[in-house]
């Protein structure tokens, strides 16, 4: 009897802290959602009334929509680049026992760890020399650098479940390394690549610090627009955009979880 009580109490504490943690993390997010439906123009409760006017404002042509377009444009380009580069890098390291593997991996994921201000500053000086500041080219390159580590990490994790014997089998059947990669490896690690690509896109989509350093007026991305919005005039349109971004982040997370699950169930040999 006594033992059972202990277990029960243990479980209660477990749940209590779990729920507390979740509340701690998402309450600030949930708190602002109603504000985006406010009919007034102040960020305060109680709401004067409900309306969709801020969503209308955000999604009608103007600076918000322009910056959304910029973000999507930069995001897509850097995602494609980061995915291609990251996938090849991860495969190279999984295929051969490169002795310097750990240090190389360290370098590859450094942009994820180094504070963005430092990366931004470094890129600002370097790109200034190369004439890449205030250009889409420069911004795409910068975001690619920041997003590649996410692809390397997810694809590397996925490759750990990939049986390298399959690659050998393909070779023995007459496939050149390139063909073996595209016909065998790529289809099997596709879920990992897709979720890496999602992370890459989100990284670029949310990026603000490096963009502040490198972006000119023409490269105003969504986070940049929000940043300026907070400084200048704060009204619920920024909240409406935030809610929209949360929705995108949520979808991304769900998709990536689904992809992971799928890759686990489908091709797990022993």
């Amino acid at each position, binding site marked *: 009897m006594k033992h059972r009580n202990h277990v029960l109490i243990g479980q209660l504490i477990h749940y209590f802290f779990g729920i507390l943690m979740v509340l701690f993390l998402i309450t600030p997010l949930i708190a602002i959602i109603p504000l985006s439906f406010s009919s007034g123009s102040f960020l305060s409760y109680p709401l004067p009334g409900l309306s969709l006017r801020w969503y209308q404002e955000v999604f009608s042509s103007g600076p918000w929509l322009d910056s959304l377009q910029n973000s999507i444009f930069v995001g897509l380009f850097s995602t494609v680049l980061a995915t291609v580069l990251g996938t090849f890098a991860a495969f190279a390291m999984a295929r051969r026992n490169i002795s310097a593997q750990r240090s190389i991996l360290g370098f590859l994921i450094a942009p994820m760890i180094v504070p963005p201000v430092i990366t931004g500053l470094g890129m600002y000086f370097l790109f200034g020399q190369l004439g890449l500041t205030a250009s889409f080219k420069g911004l795409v390159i910068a975001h690619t650098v920041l997003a590649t580590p996410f692809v390397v990490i997810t694809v590397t994790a996925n490759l750990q479940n990939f049986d390298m014997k*399959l690659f*050998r089998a393909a070779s*023995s*059947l007459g*496939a050149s390394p390139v063909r*073996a990669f595209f016909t065998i490896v790529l*289809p*099997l690690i596709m879920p990992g690549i897709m979720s890496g690509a999602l992370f890459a896109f989100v990284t670029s989509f949310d990026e603000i610090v490096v963009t502040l350093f490198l972006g000119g007026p023409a490269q105003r991305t969504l986070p940049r627009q929000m940043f300026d919005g907070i400084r200048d005039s704060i009204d619920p349109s920024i909240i409406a955009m935030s809610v929209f971004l949360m929705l995108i982040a949520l979808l991304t997370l769900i998709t990536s979880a689904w992809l992971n699950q799928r890759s686990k169930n489908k*091709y797990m040999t022993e």
Partner: protein
Amino acid sequence: MYNKNFIEFIGVQKSYDGENLVIPHLDLCIRQGEFLTFLGASGSGKTTTLMMLAGFEIPTKGQILMNSQPIQDVPAHKRGMGMVFQNYALFPHMTVEENLAYPLKMRGLNRTDIDKKVKAAMAKVHLENMGKRKPLELSGGQQQRVALARALVFEPELILMDEPLGALDKNLREHMQYEIKQLHQELGVTVVYVTHDQSEALTMSDRVAVFNNGRIEQIASPDKIYDLPNSPYIAGFIGENNALKGSLQKISGTTHRVDLGEGVSISLNRNVDSCLSPAADKPVTVMIRPEHIHLQTSKHSDEVTLSCTITDKVYLGDHTRLIGRLKNGNTIVAKIIDDLLTDETLVGNAVEFGCSEENILLFPGYD
């Protein structure tokens, strides 16, 4: 008619880390059309040798020739060797048909030829109705057949198999051994087969190469390996053997005596290997197979006698194992057919084991 030197390993050496020689020195000829098995304990270098042949590992030293042409610089995908892997390595995202079509696609065949060949290959391994399934929807034995068919479908001259039956249960394994053997005879293809199951090696092969510590100890036909092992290692590794340590003395002419210690000795009236015929005492290992020992009723002239006390008796259906102890403490195992047992063969009784001289093997030194 066939090329005797289809594949040649000449002075091949292999080290993975640049320090330990996994293969210190390997010379090997593979004949066209033969079924050659690499047999050996775990870690003896069988897979390493196979991988060098397949092109997945590069020899540290030495040469590998195919039809007298060096193949070091030919990448694996251009060597055209069929390969069956231990865990089959079927492509999980492709159906059985797609798996079989893969090597043909890589060779640029057209659709109709591919379909025809895939159908024929599936029929050959009795998988006619499985074409649309994915590998994970098949049993182990069926996956094994797909792997076999995939290695055969592009009609390679040489097929390499690394413990292909290791994951199957005993019955299925024996059945697949038979099928692989049939396919080998039917197609006339050269097979290099790796196993550490000696009965598999003996039943399937034309020749067996026994690996020990990265060297080939002996390469010969199964019956030679079994009856005339060239070292105590082989004699002990293949089948069962009683090993006794002794010292060899020459009495006169062809009369020899092996002193086994504490008054036990056997005398042999036959020639012994020149490397064994010294003037003085020479340490030797005597090997006698349990099935060559019988119960001696009356002594023949070409027989040796070993007087033992029976210490154990194990009934095994078609035969009985008698375990005897010599006066010097050595144990001897004998396989006796049940009909030949008498009322006197009981634990604790004395028994005379007999063995004809020609079945007694002598090796220099102690193993």
